[in-house]
């Protein structure tokens, strides 16, 4: 106990120098931890968001755009496919369920998702509870009935029985569908994903809202395909995407092969698209991690030298302690305790700061995307923290050993 007291008091005898050392270690580790947490949690959050989406069928174009729009409710829809494709898929022996989805309208920036009641029965995996569950009210049944995502309900203030009018496009401020007011009939439980900020309604609602209305070309997912007539009856029977649950993995592959030859639409594996995105982004993530590790290593090296010189400059204090009764092992433990207290305080502060910054960042990201970025702590963080603790210990052991074994007599003033 006395050794810890002496170590503690010695540290506070030079508070600025020691707090600076703590700050250097904390900053370096916070950066490293932040990079690791962001990389791991973004990966986790995006992959988790794709879980309910086994396969997606949509218009030809960018698979990334199809996934971003349908799964993450970001970006603009590519365009429409004929609703007949959804019907064909539903009838396919390879398919368990096929649920059509239509995008292109919003209410105050919250996207309307035209879909089918079967979506409320859809499960990410067999045996799991349904992905979207009603918290209040009921699923939509008639046109212009809407079910709000948890965040949509909270932020718009809409309640059961409340009414709103949608507007064109995927961002707020578009032309409104006057005369087609929606009534809120249900509110979803939070799902920790983008659909917390969705508004679900029937496809028919979207079709009817757009019928006999001239559409702006951009952002109108339920608008007709290029060259089609606005007044064509088929115009309203488009869908932006079809959420497909295959009967099994083999069936999924066969479906994929079929759509490779299909000129009307493409089929994508959302998890594969996200994995490809990460393969691209992964290089940047690796570079950032390397920078983080390098900064941490340099900081620890700097701290090691600083601790070494600091301990050498106080050999007289150690000699006094020896003269009044301390053994060399007492001196060793005091110097070791000083080093460990400084470096480990830096490590603790760094971990707390890293997690604090990460919480702020993910709260902002979640606010913007609806994706829950919290995930299991990455193992790499545990390695980085353990490494920093170990290096801190070693950085303290070297000066502790060196000073403890020094001659006492020559450091004692007569």
């Amino acid at each position, binding site marked *: *106990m*006395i050794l810890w*007291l*002496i170590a503690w*008091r*010695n540290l*506070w*005898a030079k508070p600025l120098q020691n707090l600076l050392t703590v700050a250097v270690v904390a900053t370096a580790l916070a950066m490293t931890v932040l990079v690791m947490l962001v990389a791991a949690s973004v990966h986790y959050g995006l992959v988790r968001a794709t879980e309910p989406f086994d396969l997606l069928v949509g218009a030809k174009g960018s698979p990334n755009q199809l996934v971003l729009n349908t799964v993450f409710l970001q970006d603009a829809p590519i365009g429409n496919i004929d609703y007949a494709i959804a019907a064909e898929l539903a009838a396919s022996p390879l398919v368990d369920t096929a649920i059509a989805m239509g995008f292109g309208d919003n209410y105050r920036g919250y996207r309307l998702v035209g879909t089918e009641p079967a979506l409320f029965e859809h499960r990410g995996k067999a045996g799991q509870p349904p992905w979207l569950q009603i918290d209040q009210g009921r699923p939509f049944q008639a046109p212009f009935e809407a079910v709000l995502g948890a965040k949509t309900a909270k932020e718009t203030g809409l309640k059961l029985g409340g009414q709103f009018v949608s507007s064109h496009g995927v961002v707020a401020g578009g032309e409104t569908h006057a005369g087609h007011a929606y009534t809120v009939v249900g509110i979803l439980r939070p799902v920790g994903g983008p659909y917390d900020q969705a508004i679900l309604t029937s496809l028919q609602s979207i079709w009817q809202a757009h019928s006999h209305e001239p559409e702006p070309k951009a952002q109108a997912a339920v608008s007709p395909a290029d060259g089609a007539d606005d007044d064509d009856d088929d115009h309203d029977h488009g869908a932006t995407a079809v959420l497909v649950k295959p009967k099994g993995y083999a069936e999924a592959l066969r479906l994929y092969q079929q759509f490779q030859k299909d000129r009307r639409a493409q089929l994508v594996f959302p998890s594969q698209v996200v994995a490809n995105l990460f393969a691209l982004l992964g290089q940047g993530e690796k570079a950032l991690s390397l920078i983080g590790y390098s900064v941490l290593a340099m900081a620890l090296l700097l701290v090691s030298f600083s601790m070494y010189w600091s301990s050498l400059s106080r050999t*007289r*204090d150690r000699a*006094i*302690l*020896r*003269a*009044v*009764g*301390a*053994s*060399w*092992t*007492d001196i060793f433990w005091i110097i070791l305790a000083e080093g460990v207290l400084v470096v480990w305080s830096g490590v603790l502060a760094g971990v707390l700061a890293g997690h604090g910054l990460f919480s702020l960042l993910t709260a902002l990201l979640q606010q913007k995307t609806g994706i829950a970025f919290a995930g299991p702590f990455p193992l790499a963080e545990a390695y980085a923290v353990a490494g920093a603790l170990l290096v801190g210990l070693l950085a303290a052991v070297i000066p502790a050993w060196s000073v403890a074994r020094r*001659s*006492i*007599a020559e450091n*004692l*003033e*007569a």
Partner: protein
Amino acid sequence: MLTIQKLIKEYRHPNGETIIAADIRELSVGQGEQLALAGPSGCGKTTLLHLIAGLASPTSGEIRWDGERIDSWPERKRDAWRAGNVGYIFQSFNLLPGLDVTENILVAAALGGRKPDAGQHRWTDEMLARVGLAERARHRPSRLSMGEQQRVAVIRALINSPRLILADEPTASLDRDNAAIILELLQALCREKGSMLILASHDRDVTARFERLHELKRPGRNPV
């Protein structure tokens, strides 16, 4: 009983020359005895105290404590012996700047794996009151005068009731009045505790207060 025979301490100068720092033919001090070591600067007074305390090892010769050769003990054993038997007082007080007055005293009782007992806490309070430092118990050394710091150093040296007190020019940094106070305190406490006192000083006024005086000469010229 402390006995020293044919004790030599040499240092190797960086230029290769061998310097004899201490050369003592024979010296013995009995328990409770108070001895003054006198001699000019460089005669080896400090080196002798370091050797007796086990802070340095002799080049040759022997130091016995109650008949046992302490100079041949391993470092760990010497550390333990010093912690339990020796109180050391320096010219420059050498209080630890990070600890307050009470902690500076009790630290000597807490090192070496020991823990200050209630008696030592009480004794510290009594001693601080006796030397007029009761109000300064929680002050850091930097807030004390030199005389006050040396009073604390004397109390620290005696906290473990050591059988041997080594004092190296304990009054050299003090004015005459403070020097007299410190010497009086040191000699009185050693008498009360029955401790052996070996005090090194070049000041004749100081050494004159001791019944026994031991003169050291420059090593290599006129060994004792």
